[in-house]
């Protein structure tokens, strides 16, 4: 556990040693602020619904950009040889990278808290601002991000080229984010399955303020699959 945290800590600090972290955070915050507040004032309704609809889409691009270097860079620079000769298990390396990326997303989300506070302040007399829904929305965002991170890490493990890692991660995130859009075109039974594997479908449930174990199990499964694939791809470097 301590070794996982040591890997995570080093990785997290490395983000901020390069300009990429700042650029990604700046892009995320400006896009989410701009795209959220514009329609908000037009609609004149003090709700975070727009925000929670928007951020998962941004994550599709932002998360692979955060995870792309995690393992690809280690392979390219050769430091993977150090990592893989430490007296630790391969999954600990992957878990450390996962936690660091999740920490990075959490920092990004922390900076969006003023959005919620502003919207709460804009709420007029009558219905109170729904802090419960805001809380479960943020939880849902973290779960979406965690699933995308697990997919993005696999992309990064598959190549020594960061850009290739980014593209593989992006394709996987797009698949799991938008697959439910096809549900309408499919017969009922198939549509159910397609909906079930969609990250967005489960997020909509949570963002409504309903924290259902079925949704939590879905995210846990997707994260576990992504991290297992990442670990086995990382271990195959030993072959």
């Amino acid at each position, binding site marked *: 556990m301590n070794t996982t945290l040591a890997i995570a*800590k080093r990785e997290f600090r490395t983000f901020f040693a390069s300009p990429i972290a700042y650029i990604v955070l700046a892009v995320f915050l400006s896009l989410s602020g701009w795209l959220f507040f514009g329609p908000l004032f037009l609609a004149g309704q003090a709700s975070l619904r727009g925000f929670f609809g928007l951020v998962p889409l941004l994550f599709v691009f932002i998360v692979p950009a955060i995870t792309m270097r995690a393992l690809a860079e280690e392979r390219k620079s050769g430091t993977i040889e150090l990592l893989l000769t430490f007296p630790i298990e391969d999954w600990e390396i992957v878990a450390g990278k996962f936690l660091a990326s999740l920490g990075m997303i959490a920092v990004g989300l922390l900076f969006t808290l003023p959005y919620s506070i502003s919207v709460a302040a804009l709420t007029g007399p009558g219905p109170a601002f729904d802090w419960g829904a805001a809380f479960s929305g943020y939880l849902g965002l973290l779960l979406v991000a965690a699933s995308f991170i697990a997919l993005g890490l696999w992309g990064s493990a598959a190549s020594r080229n960061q850009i290739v890692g980014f593209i593989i991660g992006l394709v996987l995130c797009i698949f799991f984010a938008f697959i439910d859009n096809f549900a309408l075109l499919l017969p009922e039974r198939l549509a159910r399955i397609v909906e079930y594997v969609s990250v967005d479908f489960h997020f909509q449930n949570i963002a409504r303020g309903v924290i259902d174990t079925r949704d939590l199990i879905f995210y846990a499964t997707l994260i576990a699959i992504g991290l297992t694939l990442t670990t086995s791809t990382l271990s195959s470097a*030993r072959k």
Partner: protein
Amino acid sequence: MPSSMIRIEGLTKRYGMTEALKGLSFEVPRGQVVGFLGPNGAGKSTTMRILAGYLTPTAGKAFVGDVDVSADPVRARAMIGYLPENNPLYEEMMVFDFLHFIAEVRKIDPAQRDARIKSAAERCGLKDVIGKDIGQLSKGYRQRVGLAQAILHDPDLLILDEPTSGLDPNQIVEIRELIKDLGKEKTVILSTHVLSEVQSTCSRVLIINGGKLVADDSPENLPASGGEGAIHLVLGSRSGAAIDSAAASGVLKSVAGVTGVDVVEGEGHGTVGFKLRFGVEDPRRALFEVVVKNDWVILEVRRTQVSLEDTFRKLTGDKKAA
């Protein structure tokens, strides 16, 4: 406690179609400093990577102490300090932060971390650069950072893959002194192309070629273990006429004991130089008879030392042709 620090049994490693190691076996007792020699692609790095727990062998076993590196890799790796080839480091980290990170992942007791970092940094001469980014360091300092991370957890076995490559002569001497010093208390296996390095730091030499062990001896004995000596010979003809070097070398080759003849530079005026190699039998008496019979005169005859270089070339070069 077993007496051997490294035990390798029939180690084989295939990358796709190419076979990097073909059933390599050797044993290294505790406290020995072993030089691992071989041309590029001989399998040195592959062997070291398997020992260090980075690669898994295709077949065969490798033990560090009594731990099988494939069966219990985490425990085996904990006993090893490893300096990989090309010394990969996290460029963006400060030297101290890097060593601190190593201390964490190597599970060094938090109470001892700072003391360990301090002693490793002192030993490797890193005190002046401890607060600098690794990316800014010269190659010599980088190498010391690599060594410092390898000794930080006080391992029983040090695996150093080309520890002096790319350094200037002063840095090489410094690093060698450091390795010699470490060798007093630890088992060290180091790979190199530089033969003088083996002679100055190692008590034993292993030469591998094409994934197999071709020699295993002390650096002093190794030149002779090729079973050969050499003679430098310069001949002229009694009449002063030029000697036909091709015909003469044919004659010399037939002398009992001579195993090889190379024509080298003579002294001019029709003289010819030869480099003769011989096996167990000393051919000098027989040579004298042949020279007299052919009406030649010996202008110079000198036994030459067979260097480690010659042995290395013979063991790793000739085998390919054969």
